[in-house]
């Protein structure tokens, strides 16, 4: 393990307490809503705020008492914070200069890094004349120039527009894979998290609520926040073999599970009927339409009832079934697309 940390930061009305381990070359993404404490954790790792309690061990060395300038850490800040009075080259050379290298050496190193980022022709340009994507790459080059063992990125794609974002995201993924130290990345965007992470750590209210491979988390969310992010209906109930009981309803699922369990299914697995359909009473109930909204090329219908669910239907179905808020409607969920797992 390269990074092993327990980060505790206490503030009035806020407490952050998380354990974090990151292996060599691994990219761990902290995902969570705004105010969950992700950025605070990153700042604590960088040494910009002190730990209330805990420890940070990097390559077997305790660094939690070292000031920021002595930690082998590189940071890419949310809006990059490139020094406005220095050229791109001197921004990247800043770190090596501080490490005691000569001006010529530092610049040679900076030039090599900018070159690798495909920014050779921008080395004499001031940050304000760089595009968002270019500034992000300069910021990454600047952070890497100090040869850090731990790379921290705070919302590295948040400042980019949707179009550049797509391109920069996969490029960033490539560059992070090439970095052989530990990487911790913070984002509130689930797609960024899924693409960039080897492992996802979901943080809510200052604590880790779920941790695992992106695919695993997308399939088996454990909190409402994660379920919303990955677009699944999620309920907590009691399993007894081949079904899970949630609020008086019995759900048949693919997996057998006993004891406290989660049931998850995608909105497209939900079907709506004006009259009670024939067949199994399982996965079937009557509810009332709460809201209807456009969601990409289909319509998302929110149905209130014993359990509140989201259903995706076609625009044609909306007209045919007269899906207006307040109408009573029958809801059924395909068992084949319903997953159950222990809570």
């Amino acid at each position, binding site marked *: 393990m390269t990074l092993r940390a327990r980060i505790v930061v206490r503030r009035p009305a806020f407490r952050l307490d998380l354990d974090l381990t990151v292996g060599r070359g691994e990219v761990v993404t902290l995902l969570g809503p705004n105010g969950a404490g992700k950025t605070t954790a990153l700042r604590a790792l*960088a*040494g*910009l705020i002190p730990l209330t309690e805990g420890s940070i061990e990097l390559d077997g060395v305790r660094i939690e008492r070292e*000031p*920021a*300038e*002595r*930690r082998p*850490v*590189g*940071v890419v*800040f949310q809006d990059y*914070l490139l*020094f*406005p*009075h220095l050229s791109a080259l001197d921004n990247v050379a*800043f*770190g090596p200069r*501080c*490490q005691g290298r000569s001006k010529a050496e530092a610049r040679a190193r900076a030039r090599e890094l900018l070159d690798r980022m495909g920014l050779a022709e921008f080395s004499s340009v001031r940050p304000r004349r760089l595009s968002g994507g270019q500034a992000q790459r300069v910021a990454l080059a*600047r*952070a890497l*120039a*100090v040869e850090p063992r731990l790379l921290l990125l705070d919302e590295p794609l948040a400042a980019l527009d949707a179009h550049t974002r797509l391109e920069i995201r996969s490029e960033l993924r490539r560059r992070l894979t090439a970095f052989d130290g530990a990487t911790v990345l913070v984002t509130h965007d689930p797609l960024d998290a899924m693409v960039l992470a080897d492992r996802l750590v979901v943080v809510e209210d200052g604590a880790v609520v779920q941790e695992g491979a992106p695919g695993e988390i997308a399939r088996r969310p454990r909190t409402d926040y994660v379920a919303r992010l990955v677009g699944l209906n999620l309920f907590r109930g009691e399993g007894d073999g081949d079904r899970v009981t949630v609020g008086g309803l019995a759900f048949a699922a693919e997996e057998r599970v006993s004891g406290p369990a989660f049931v998850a299914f995608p909105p497209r697995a939900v079907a709506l009927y004006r009259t009670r359909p024939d067949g199994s009473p399982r996965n079937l109930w009557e509810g009332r339409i709460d809201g209807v909204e456009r969601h990409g090329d289909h319509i998302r219908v929110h149905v209130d009832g014993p359990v509140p669910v989201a259903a995706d239907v076609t625009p044609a179905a909306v007209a045919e079934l007269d899906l207006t808020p307040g109408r009573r409607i029958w809801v059924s969920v395909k068992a084949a697309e319903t997953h159950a797992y222990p809570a």
Partner: protein
Amino acid sequence: MAFLVLPLAGLLIRAPWSTLPQRLAEPQVIEALRLSLVTASVATVVCLVLGVPLAWLLARTDFPGRRLLRALVTVPLVLPPVVGGVALLLVFGRRGLVGQWLESAFGFSLPFTTAGVVVAEAFVAMPFLVIAVEGALRAADPRYEEAAATLGASRFTVFRRVTLPLVAPGVLAGAVLCWARALGEFGATITFAGNFPGRTQTMPLAVYLALETEPEAAIVLSLVLLAVSVVILAGLRDRWVGAAA
């Protein structure tokens, strides 16, 4: 408006334009001008050396008594300059708290010397610099300093290579204001440093003195000071104040 403009117009109307070149070339005028420029510049340097770190302390650190210090810094701004001169005399005079010690240790006395002029000017002009630089520091984004720290920069390197360049427009504006204030200093200078031609007689002192004997000479000297003020004001408006804001 008229109240502000009329006196300046009067100065221009009454100016002895025909004899202006000769009067400007008079050794006394040249001497006073030279002394004024030199002392104001040295006073500005003194203010920069003492004032910039002070402004940094006020803007970026928190220590007990910071608010009090901040209030003290602005005292010379509201204090009548003559009172400032008297206060300086009490401290640096031959019998003064520090002056006594300076005299016995180094055989050196500040009052009524050119160095005394510099001290008086710096005392009065310092708040202008400190307030301008502190304002610029507070407006500058401290996260740039954090970014520099994560790149391995020590506190001093951060200050020198990041903070200072970021607040340079503010420092420049402060230094210019400080210089202008020092150039026009009268009360503290005449009280603390006296009025010796060539040694402590700066332009404002020369103006005042000339007014009693040779009003036309006073007008010429005033014109020179007016010209300097206008040039500074124009420069400040167009470049530095705009850049700092």
